[in-house]
């Protein structure tokens, strides 16, 4: 089975006065059909810029300077802006962290959905109204009639995020990019939205790129995971591989440092701070904080290593960027 979307050695740099910020530097991963692929990382890891690069909406002074993004047989980076507009919202759509900021406060939910539907499909206004109602049902909003007539401020945060998801589905996309979709929501509401994401994957065969820093969410909904740190990929693999046999020391360190609700564990903090991306550390970007670092790690940048990969993509491939992953034995919780 072909991957739905493939990102290959993507580089997106920001040309600031302070210098060139290599926000995304040689990032690659592939998203398979009907899976939830999590991009995990802390702030500055490059996960959001990666998403913006896929849709080619990187804000200035950022620029995509290299790589390929293969989707439906084409490299998105080769498309004209006009062709790209046929992709955004129709084939790949985006939902963001704060639904209040993405919905227009001056228009009713119906207006906003109808607009999105008419822009992304060939439907006329009457058909679009019907479709708007259907979309709200799809995202499991109770009493869609009332919600259609409401303005965003009349809805709760969870409802607004459902509306934002409904709007993202207006053009029947194949890929949904969800950038921290539940960070602004309470946990009980978060659980509802995560449930919805799972059902969208199963019922519509959507591929979802889920951007998050919450390892709990990843464990609960993701099928595959790419761990990022300081603009680089650390490793990719199935969710079970990442949590139960991590190959990269950063992944392991993260897992050991998160508090858990199901048991009291001694938290093992990761020493040091997240690096400055104008002058990232030489060699492996994690080496100053890595307990396994040797001299080589501070000089030579680790390359991609494929582990037990499947040529036909029936299984998620396992990849890791670490000089020492074969020698070190990582302990897990």
């Amino acid at each position, binding site marked *: 089975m072909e991957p739905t979307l493939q990102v290959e050695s993507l580089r997106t740099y920001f040309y600031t006065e302070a210098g060139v910020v290599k926000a995304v530097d040689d990032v690659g991963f592939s998203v398979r059909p009907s899976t939830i692929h999590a991009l995990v990382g802390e702030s500055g890891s490059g996960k959001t810029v990666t998403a913006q690069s896929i849709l080619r909406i990187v804000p200035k002074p950022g620029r995509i300077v290299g790589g390929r993004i293969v989707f439906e047989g084409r490299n998105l980076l080769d498309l004209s802006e006009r062709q790209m507009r046929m992709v955004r919202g129709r084939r790949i759509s985006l939902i963001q962290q704060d639904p209040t900021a993405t919905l227009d406060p001056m228009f009713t939910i119906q207006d906003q959905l109808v607009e999105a539907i008419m822009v992304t499909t060939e439907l006329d206004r009457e058909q679009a109204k019907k479709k708007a109602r259907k979309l709200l049902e799809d995202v499991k909003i109770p009493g869609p009639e009332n919600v259609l007539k409401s303005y965003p401020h009349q809805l709760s945060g969870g409802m607004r995020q459902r509306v934002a998801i409904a709007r993202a589905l207006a053009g029947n996309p194949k890929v949904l990019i969800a950038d921290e979709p539940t960070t602004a929501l309470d946990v009980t509401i978060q659980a509802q939205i995560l449930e919805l994401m799972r059902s969208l994957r199963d019922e519509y065969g959507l591929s979802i790129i889920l951007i998050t820093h919450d390892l709990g969410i990843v464990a609960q909904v993701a099928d595959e995971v790419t761990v990022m740190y300081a603009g680089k990929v650390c490793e990719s693999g199935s969710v079970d591989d990442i949590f139960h046999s991590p190959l990269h020391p950063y992944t392991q*360190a*993260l897992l050991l440092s998160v508090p858990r609700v199901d048991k*009291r564990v001694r938290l093992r903090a990761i020493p040091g701070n997240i690096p400055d991306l104008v002058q990232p550390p030489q060699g492996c970007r994690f080496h100053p904080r890595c307990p396994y670092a040797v001299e080589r790690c501070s000089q030579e940048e680790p390359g991609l290593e494929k582990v037990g990969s499947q040529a036909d993509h029936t299984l998620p491939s396992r990849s890791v960027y670490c000089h020492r992953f074969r020698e070190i034995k990582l302990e897990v919780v």
Partner: protein
Amino acid sequence: MPQDILELKDVKKYYPLTERYTFRSRVTAYVKAVDGVSLTLPEQSTVGLVGESGCGKTTTAKIAAGLIRPDSGSVKFMGADLSEILGDSGSAKQFRRSVQLVYQNPYSSLDPMMTVGDIVKEPLIIHGLARGRELEEAMYSLLRKVNLEDYHALRYPHELSGGQRQRVCIARALATQPKLVLLDEPVSSLDLSIRAQILNLLVELKERERLSYLYISHDLATVRQMCDYVAVMYLGRVVEYAPTDELFNNPMHPYTQALLSAIPIPDPRVKRKRMVLEGDVPNPVNPPEGCRFHTRCRYASQLCRERDQKLIEVGNQHWVACWVAPTGGIPSYSLEYTRE
């Protein structure tokens, strides 16, 4: 038997909603932010106050800090009534020294125009605790306590990382040698890899400085790590209060159970019974009659819809505000799970 450092009894705080006209305004309704909260904090322990946004946890903390006066109910600090303490300027100043706050966002709670050293020295100067060379030494020793280096004293907040800024806030809170520190979401704005550093530091300082903490958070996982007792709030009320392990092992209130089941556990092999709550938190302007949770509770009976239940003790220092739970009408919920 340790003394209670803080005791809240039936505390209420309503905020008026007003309609403004040209020359007058009229109160149309009240937001019942805190509506009958009772809570005790034993000395040298950490009590967690958890709940979702709008449940009144921050208002409760502000009342405990004496920053806002409750409309009714009593607050006692070390056995003395808070309104009396604040009534006298001498004891009020003493109280301000004994109770300190650390906020969620360390950037907005630090003055960008002051150096770290000046920020940490300020409370010492205000309270007249040190001067001259002693002041400098006290400041450096505070920085060392939170694992900052001496050179950080000359830096400005914007030159520090989020974790370092939060360390500065903690150092400033410790300057007056407080007994009680109110921690309002102290790690929520920090990055994953930094959170554990700050949590570990807080635990270490609590032991060394003999502090008590009121730890406010929506994140039950950090609460489990940090707290000795946990109070769960819903719509301005405490619905369950118990020692931490008791609460997590044997949650009794249906809201606590739902809250616990909603928290994702960072292990994909964990399969749990999920109890997804329907609907949203009702508006605190117009909370439901009877038990406030009944609109979302699957076990609600006629009694729950009509009458309100107070916190009652069900053994093991475990208190719950529910009609059904003490009768055994709510199946127990366990975080124990099956692994594939």
